């Protein structure tokens, strides 16, 4: 019943996206494992892992879009939820190393032995069990977002103030995770993973499976987000985005709606982080960098916020550009990224999807609603 409800919540474009993702989850691993290397359709393990990374970014972008595009909350700290999910996964992977570390301690990860710690800190307990770790991947970002949102939305911190304190949140976490005595490996983070669920993490089969998991999880996230925004709840969210005070005066408990979508979005970001870590092979505090969170926002803006397909396109396109530029013309990349921020905000308020819509229908969809929301949340200017 739930499945049919979820599927029915998709529009034509949504079904296409989900279908494409499922197809990718089948074809790309097949192209890696089954097609011989000489064949033109062969997908190298490098390309497979790279694409898998893009898909986790896309899930992060989708979570940012859910709060920004549909509820008008510009988070400059979603990277924090992404990184927390990643750290939860990283802790599980660290515990799986067991006695194969450099110091061969059966319980303690290498960095703890190096710091001369005698026993496991309490918050590391349980991470040797996969189910517990996977639960924490969702729970830790979720609870943090719930507390943060509960405090902020209740006291009606909105607009740029909220953006700035989300940035302060991720900055505080960045500083905290850099500390060695926090017990998360400090500057170096967590790395040198060996196994995931008993399978060697470097093996082509595992990598293919991780790619498929990323694609399917993105599809699932897309379906859930679609169900949310197309429900009555979603209409209220858009109403909050466009006229928060008016929605409140009509009688909706604005902070409850915001808190729900904010927490859901953080959980999605956490899952994205958890899928990112085993594919990249490392998690360190730089993921908490405020700059990383702002980059995630620009993926959404490039693709088109307020559409569900936009963030997917934006995340993949921008990151493909990043990979290409940093390989060919590394010094040009920051110029290109900076120009992207400027050009998109000035000329493409609805992103690539808006551009496509205009090309297809011959006229732009009205953008008034987006502007109105900002003005409402904004300053005296």
């Amino acid at each position: 019943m739930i499945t049919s409800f979820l599927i029915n919540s998709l529009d034509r474009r949504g079904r296409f996206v989900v279908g494409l993702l499922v197809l990718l989850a089948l074809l790309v691993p097949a192209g890696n494992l089954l097609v011989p290397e000489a064949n033109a359709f062969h997908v190298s393990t490098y390309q497979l892992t790279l694409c898998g990374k893009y898909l986790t970014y896309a899930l992060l972008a989708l979570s940012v879009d859910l709060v920004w595009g549909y509820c008008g909350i510009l988070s400059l700290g979603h990277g924090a939820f992404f990184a927390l999910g990643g750290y939860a996964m990283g802790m599980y992977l660290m515990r799986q190393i067991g006695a194969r570390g450099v110091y061969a301690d059966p319980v303690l990860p290498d960095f703890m032995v190096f710091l001369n710690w005698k026993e496991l800190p309490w918050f590391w307990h349980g991470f040797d069990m996969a189910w517990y770790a996977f639960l924490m991947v969702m729970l830790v970002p979720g609870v943090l977002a719930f507390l943060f949102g509960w405090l902020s939305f209740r006291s009606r911190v909105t607009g740029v103030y909220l953006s700035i304190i989300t940035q302060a949140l991720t900055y505080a976490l960045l500083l905290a995770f850099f500390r060695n005595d926090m017990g998360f490996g400090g500057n170096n983070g967590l790395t040198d993973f060996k196994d995931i669920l008993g399978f060697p993490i470097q093996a082509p089969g595992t990598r293919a499976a991780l790619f498929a998991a990323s694609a399917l999880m993105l599809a699932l996230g897309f379906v859930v987000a679609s169900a949310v925004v197309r429900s009555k709840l979603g209409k209220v969210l858009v109403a909050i985005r466009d006229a928060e005070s008016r929605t409140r005066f009509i009688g909706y408990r604005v902070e409850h709606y915001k808190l729900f979508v904010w927490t859901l979005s953080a959980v999605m970001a956490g899952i994205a982080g958890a899928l990112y870590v085993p594919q990249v092979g490392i998690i360190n505090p730089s993921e908490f960098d405020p700059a990383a969170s702002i980059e995630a926002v620009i993926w959404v803006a490039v693709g088109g916020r307020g559409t569900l397909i936009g963030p997917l396109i934006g995340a993949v396109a921008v990151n493909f550009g990043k990979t290409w530029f940093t390989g060919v013309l590394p010094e040009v990349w920051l110029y290109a990224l900076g120009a992207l921020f400027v050009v998109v905000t000035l000329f493409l308020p609805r992103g690539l999807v808006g551009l496509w819509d205009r090309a297809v229908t011959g006229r732009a969809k009205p953008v008034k609603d987006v502007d109105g929301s900002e003005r409402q949340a904004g300053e005296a200017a």
Partner: protein
Amino acid sequence: MSFLRLLAIWAILILGLQPALADRIADADLAPRVAALGSGGFDAAEQAIADLAGTGDDRVPTILDRLGEGELMVRKTDGAVFFAEKAGKDFRLTDPVTGADAGLAPKATLEKVKVNNRIRRAIASAVGALTLMSSDPVVRRSAAEAVMKSADAAAIPALDKAIAAETVADVRAAMMAARATALLASDAPEADKVASIAAIADFGSRDALGFLSGYTTADGAVGEAARKAAAAIESRLMLWDIGQNLWYGLSLGSVLLLAAIGLAITFGVMGVINMAHGEMVMLGAYATFTVQEAIRTFWPDLFDYSLLIALPAAFLTAALAGILIERSIIRWLYGRPLETLLATWGVSLILQQAVRSLYGANNREVGNPSWMSGSFALGDIQVTWTRLWIILFALAVFLTLIAVLKRTRLGLEMRAVTQNRQMAAAVGIRTPLVDALTFGLGSGIAGLAGVALSQIDNVSPNLGRGYIIDSFMVVVFGGVGNLWGTLVGALTLGVANKLLEPYAGAVLGKIILLVAIILFIQKRPRGLFALKGRAVEA
């Protein structure tokens, strides 16, 4: 200690200051006493040292000091003692009494005068006692401190003599403390010891605390008095520590203030979120670097004024960059603060990369002019000139800005546009021009901050990144649109940060502060000094 002793000797010899009571005795009287040092046996040497010290001759400290350094040698043939300096395979000998050159001698013909710890102590206290009578109060004070560290009962008579002759209260207190430590180490009666602890407590330096801590575990009246005295000194030193941290806090607060005032204009007054604000600071710092390099190359005489010359250059560079950004990007985004935020972030990336391409990614060195280097002590508080100037500079910039806003035509128009744009336009104010100038002013002030920061921070393309979040915190905490709030916010955060640091460590202190600000904003979403009225919600 050896440094202090050398200092004392240097002062006596180079400045030609004769010790107050030191008469030079005849060479013929001094020579046999010096020769006695090398006559063999530690007991004899110790006796000889006391004998030499008793002469009060101003050549004795040098002789004893070189003895301590192991540079005194005996000629085996006649038992005469010389200063020996290595010269190739041989040693160059100098007569310690007359200073006459006694030629070269091979190593085999010489024997070093042996020194052990007992002898070293005797040397230290003898030199200390001798320099206690110096005519320079600084030398006397360091001599007293040297005696205090050695805590040798043998120095008591010399100290008594010096105390009786001493006229400077400060130095006298140091001598009393030294006498007290010497007494405490001796086998004097308990009552005298308790009294001497009181004298040490009055003096109250870190050394005194270190010395007393050796007695806090002792039994009886001495132990108790020592514990009490140590506690008293500790609490006094703690007050100085708090004073020092307050100073550091003010210094950090002034840096935050400088970085944040410009933001208080662009964000607080105009409502523009300028994420490239930190890059304006960076531009100011690089302008300073460029000006200083030019001065170094073409007019090296003007180097001391380079920062003053850089001030207008940095202001104009950043202000022009700001006006350019406002005219080309920000003016299309008024009323859409979140878009402004993203666009200016893009600008900040471009500026960083541009500076990296022009100047390279490495840190650039901006020199200190002579009037900004060095430091002085205020009680137990160390004050560096750089920090003092930056505090004064920050206050000057702040007051100038207040004056511009309150007293000039431009300031009046700025406030008018902020409060009611349509009305301002209706009465004939050219609002686009005012927008550009306001943004230019805010950016220019960031450039001025760059001049100051170039003195204490690394001038690199990432300079601005480190300040942007802190600056936003200051402005939001102080209350948007309120310059006095920015001042209070910057100083509060600076001082709170530095007072937390000794307990929590630098990083944890900062985290605590960030979390505290996040919670504070929940309580007062508009900051410490919120603007009231309709303009706020519009």
